[in-house]
């Protein structure tokens, strides 16, 4: 074969590879949408599928049914997708940034910080604000404080990514012990309330919280995608990325900021859902590698599908009851994760 033909064939192969990756992303998106349908159709109120469909199509249904479908199930089910997506992307970018597949927003202490912020508001009161607003604000403020510490550390050029991970883990322990302290000092019923928030659940979702989370996620993910190739280069190591013209220092700060804002908002509304930031990027990496053009979208839809499925499961494990989805995520996720790791070898 002459040399030109080899090049043409290799380019064709590359195009096939690209479309195969896009198809994979489509399939996982379809899975997420399927989970969304189930998520809307299933719930503790035992509505029949007909009733749910009728309500969704805008037919005349009982007012109670309408409230359940429109004000409870639909925002909750959509929130599962959005939060899953933002945690998936957050995990992917933190892993890229820190050059470590074991990192996630959770390991950097962001989730623990959210927990502490929320618990402080629940324990100390909300200064007149309605609790449904004050708790997310408290969680968000504390998460931004934790991110701020990481941000300052990351801005020092002496600090390597290993040291940043260590600092994050140290923060995780600090916030966890402070959280325990708050719980220890609180009255039992307050402590109970804190515990319930910590489980992570979607039940408090409103159209407003869904709107805020969606808007923030869309903006942050779009901005992150602009750095797709620079982030891909970063995974060759900071020194090599610098040889390719990446300003690694500035990139590190920008990405850390975007991920912190995005995951903080998500966690603040739904509580601690830890596992997705680790598992979604891992699955995406196995399926399409770490070219960020495919890695980020696939981490996103995998995270969305994962949380949506967990949300469905949280409703069917005990019919009529609703488990906190944060518990279900790890419960289902860990065996699945082990299975992936084992079949890969």
């Amino acid at each position, binding site marked *: 074969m002459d040399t030109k033909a080899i090049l043409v064939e290799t380019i064709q192969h*590359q195009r096939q590879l690209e479309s195969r990756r896009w198809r994979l992303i489509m399939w996982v998106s379809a899975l997420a949408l399927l989970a969304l349908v189930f998520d809307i159709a299933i719930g503790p109120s035992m509505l029949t599928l007909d009733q749910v469909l009728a309500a969704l199509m805008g037919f005349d249904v009982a007012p109670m049914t309408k409230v359940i479908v429109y004000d409870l199930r639909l925002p909750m089910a959509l929130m599962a997708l959005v939060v899953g997506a933002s945690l998936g992307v957050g995990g992917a970018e933190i892993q890229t940034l820190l050059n470590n597949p074991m990192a996630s927003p959770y390991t950097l202490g962001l989730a623990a910080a959210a927990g502490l912020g929320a618990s402080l508001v629940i324990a100390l009161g909300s200064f007149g604000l309605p609790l449904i607003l004050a708790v997310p604000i408290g969680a968000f403020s504390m998460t931004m404080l934790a991110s701020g510490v990481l941000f300052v550390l990351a801005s020092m050029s002496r600090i390597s990514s290993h040291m940043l991970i260590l600092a994050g883990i140290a923060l995780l322990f600090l916030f966890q012990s402070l959280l325990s302290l708050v719980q220890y000092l609180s009255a039992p019923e307050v402590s109970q309330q804190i515990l319930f928030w910590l489980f992570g659940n979607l039940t408090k979702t409103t159209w407003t919280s869904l709107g805020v989370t969606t808007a923030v996620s869309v903006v942050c993910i779009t901005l992150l995608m602009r750095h797709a190739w620079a982030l891909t280069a970063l995974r060759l190591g900071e020194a090599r990325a610098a040889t390719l013209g990446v300003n690694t220092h500035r990139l590190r700060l920008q990405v850390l900021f975007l991920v912190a804002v995005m995951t903080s908002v998500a966690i603040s509304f739904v509580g601690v859902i830890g596992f997705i930031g680790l598992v979604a990027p891992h699955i995406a990496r196995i399926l399409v590698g770490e070219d960020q053009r495919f890695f980020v979208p696939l981490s996103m839809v995998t995270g969305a599908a994962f949380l949506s499925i967990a949300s469905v499961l949280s409703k069917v494990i005990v019919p009529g009851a609703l488990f906190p989805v944060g518990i279900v995520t790890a419960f289902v996720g860990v065996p699945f994760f082990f299975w992936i790791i084992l079949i890969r070898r």
Partner: protein
Amino acid sequence: MTCSDISEAVSQTTMPALRLDEISIVRGATQTARALSAEFNAGQVYAILGPNGTGKSSLLKAIFGELSLSQGRIHYGPHPLSMRHLASWRQRIGYMPQGTEIDVSLTVLEVVLLGKLDALHMYVGDELLNEALEIMQQVGIVDLAHRDIQTLSGGQRQLAMFCQVLLRDPAIMLLDEPVSALDMHHQLNLLEQVHQETRQRRLITITVLHDLSLAAQFADQVMLLGEGVLQASGTPHDVLTPERLSPLYGVAVERLYDSAGIPVIRPLRQMNRGLVN
């Protein structure tokens, strides 16, 4: 006048040179270069030689602007290296650092494409793919284009990184031990490519090498470093003498000649010497 002499003369008039003026580099508490001056011309391959820890890599890093100078200046033509215009300085440089460890799940083609980082978007067009693949074909790794870089041998990875540097289309090429993981065949292949590309594209090529005989075969000029000080520079023939090398490396050295009359440097076993004496 030989062919290479003519091209050298042409290059000196048309392409800027890279000049180091009395540069000193301090790394932590140790000084890795002291009042070092040199001039590098386009179309020439320069090999930096010397024992371990004498600041060969540091010199490349300083030229790249990764290590700051404690004294002296670096110029490319009229342009000085300054930390404020680092991005545009680095634009001209294709730098291949030491080491072959890569733990990222990317295909070889994706890694090579990163060389043209500024030109990459969500969709990478046929033209750019073709450019990358042509270089890969020339270097002999086009058949590896879709392999995961992690599954490659260290030597194959070195070839991929070299393709990445070429795709950058640099004016200055800095190679830090580019053949350390390669077998004989690939060592020759890569250095031959370095030589050809340097001539064709009128590059300034500076490479750190450990194998003195390879340096003698492929470098136009060699620079011998010892303790951060330039011990000697010039053609391999003039610089690589046993009188200079023996004390510097701390071993007895013999200089032989191959059939083309190029020097071959061979370290001698201490034991052998004992037996002969």
